[in-house]
């Protein structure tokens, strides 16, 4: 037998042995990483479809219980507050309007090694001319996917592109300032301080953007004669932050706002029709009271050496409840 023939024979035998071994031997897993993508594409689509359907039905029927099936946290509080205001103004038998569903534009899914799981979806709402940047969360393995943040930006607003690696969203820890001008939690706290006090020492840490201007102008309009008006802001803990392609970060934050009115003895205040003040305090308002609001904001934090200061790019907010403080001064 020649050497060539021997080699051929050995090759054929080796091939046969290799084929015989296919599927017989279990292989070591390629990674010991226990994390998982927060959601697969079908889950994302199903979650979003369910959300749109339930939200439409809830606003059409002005039924916050339906909304509670698909929303949670501040966004549920805001939407429930809107329904509550509508009922107070128009009666319990009133109905709302069917809202036009938005369409998903992009989805960003992180890999997570523990609950809560979450993902980000951007949806285009042509009817309202806004783009929703929404966070859906599954708090635990036994709960449903629910919307937990939904700041909105004008369609003309250019949003930084989130950074992904192999299709996986890069996240930023709330207290991680690595590569950023400041950590997400720290930035949101500074922003709340500046909203409450234009002369705050932290005013140099964040930009006095359009949201700040709008809130200050609104506050000036709410200071009615015969009342002492006071507005305070506080930041809720940051839960979701993601890295952007330019090295910066997008931070989903929630700000709590409290508007308090202390009426001087004998004073009354008349509020515009359709306002939440009229819904909660009556017409005319004759007692002191506090209205509480949630504002969900999407903040952009530039990278170290980047252009500009941290600023808000999108927001969604509304009244979440009221408190009749009577003769006691509002906080």
């Amino acid at each position, binding site marked *: *037998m020649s*050497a060539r023939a*021997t080699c051929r*024979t*050995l090759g054929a*035998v080796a091939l*046969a*042995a290799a084929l*015989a071994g296919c*599927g*017989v*031997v*279990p*292989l*070591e*897993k*390629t990674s*010991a*990483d*226990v*994390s*998982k993508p927060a959601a697969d594409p079908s889950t994302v689509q199903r979650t979003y479809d369910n959300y749109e359907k339930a939200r439409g039905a809830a606003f059409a029927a002005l039924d916050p219980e339906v909304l509670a099936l698909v929303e949670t946290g501040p966004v549920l509080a805001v939407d429930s507050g809107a329904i509550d205001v509508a009922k107070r103004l128009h009666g319990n038998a009133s109905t709302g309007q069917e809202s036009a569903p938005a369409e998903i534009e992009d989805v960003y899914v992180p890999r*997570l*090694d*523990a*609950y809560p*799981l979450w993902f980000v979806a951007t949806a285009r709402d042509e009817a309202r001319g806004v783009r929703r940047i929404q966070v859906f969360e599954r708090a*635990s*393995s*036994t709960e449903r996917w629910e919307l937990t943040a939904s700041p909105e930006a004008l369609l003309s607003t250019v949003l930084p592109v989130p950074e992904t690696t192999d299709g996986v969203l890069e996240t930023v820890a709330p207290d991680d300032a690595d590569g950023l001008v400041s950590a997400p939690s720290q930035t949101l706290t500074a922003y709340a301080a500046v909203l409450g006090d234009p002369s705050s020492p932290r005013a140099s840490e964040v930009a006095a953007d359009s949201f700040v201007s709008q809130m200050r102008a609104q506050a000036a309009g709410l200071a009615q004669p015969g009342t002492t008006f006071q507005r305070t802001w506080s930041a809720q803990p940051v839960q979701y932050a993601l890295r952007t392609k330019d090295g910066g970060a997008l931070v989903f934050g929630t700000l709590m706002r409290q508007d308090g009115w202390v009426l001087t003895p004998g004073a009354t205040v008349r509020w515009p029709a359709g306002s939440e003040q009229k819904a909660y305090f009556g017409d005319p308002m004759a007692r002191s009271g506090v209205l509480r609001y949630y504002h969900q904001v999407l903040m952009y934090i530039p990278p170290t050496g980047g252009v500009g200061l941290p600023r808000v790019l999108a927001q969604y907010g509304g009244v979440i409840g009221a408190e009749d403080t009577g003769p006691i001064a509002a906080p």
Partner: protein
Amino acid sequence: MRRGAGIGLLALGIILVLAGTAVAVAMGPDDRLTTGPHDVRTDGRAVVTKPAVLARYGPQVSVLVEVPDEKPVFVGLGHTVDVEDYVSSTARVEVTRYRVPWSLERRDATGEPQLRAAPTALDWWLAQSSGIGGAQLRFTLPDDAVSLAVLAVGDFDLRGLRVTASYEVPGAFGVGVGTAATGLGVVLLALVALKWVPGVRRTAPAVDAVGFVDDEWDVPWPETDPADADTWDDFLSEDSTPPATKAGSGAAGPRAGGGRWSRWRRRKGGVTRPKAAADKQKVAR
């Protein structure tokens, strides 16, 4: 060279025979390698594996769980993130290590006696099965961190739990038999190469044998022997040579010019001359 290759083939063949036979015997005609049933001591409602237990992927696995007294039981495979969150508040047995055929290391974790929700109501199981008195789950181990969970359903517990595990490789028996057969073939090939099979040993053509065989397939044509320097003209020129003169010169070998004539003359059936060249090529082909 030939001997070395032969020995190599022989070794390879033996390995294939042994490996194929081992696979075929171990897996059996049902293509399963089974261990159990084994008792898993617990009086709780959950037995789960840590990710290190299912550290490999690829094969199909079958798990049969049985509980006495017709109790309902659930067995499911889920991503470790999901499973660990689900049972995190429940008293459970955690299997931290498993070695074949059946050696478990376990840890008892404390917690609430009840599960947070019915396992059948969850949507993230990669595979699940439930039944009364037992349940069987068959799944392919994914290349991801997964955990197996055996869970009680309703107000029952897992006391008396018995587990049977099977490692399934569809077609493994056939592959084993095929591999063994291939190995046998390789062994035979090696024996032939090593000339250790007397029945098929090749011998040098006895061109000068007295009993020249008639079969043209067994003995090469003398004219095709490259060592033969004679030409056709030489052959024709020997025609007139008296046969008797050459018959006794067999010892001279094929190069002795008259030796060929004596061979033709002795062929059975009276063939005394070679055929035309074209005919010979046809036969040789």
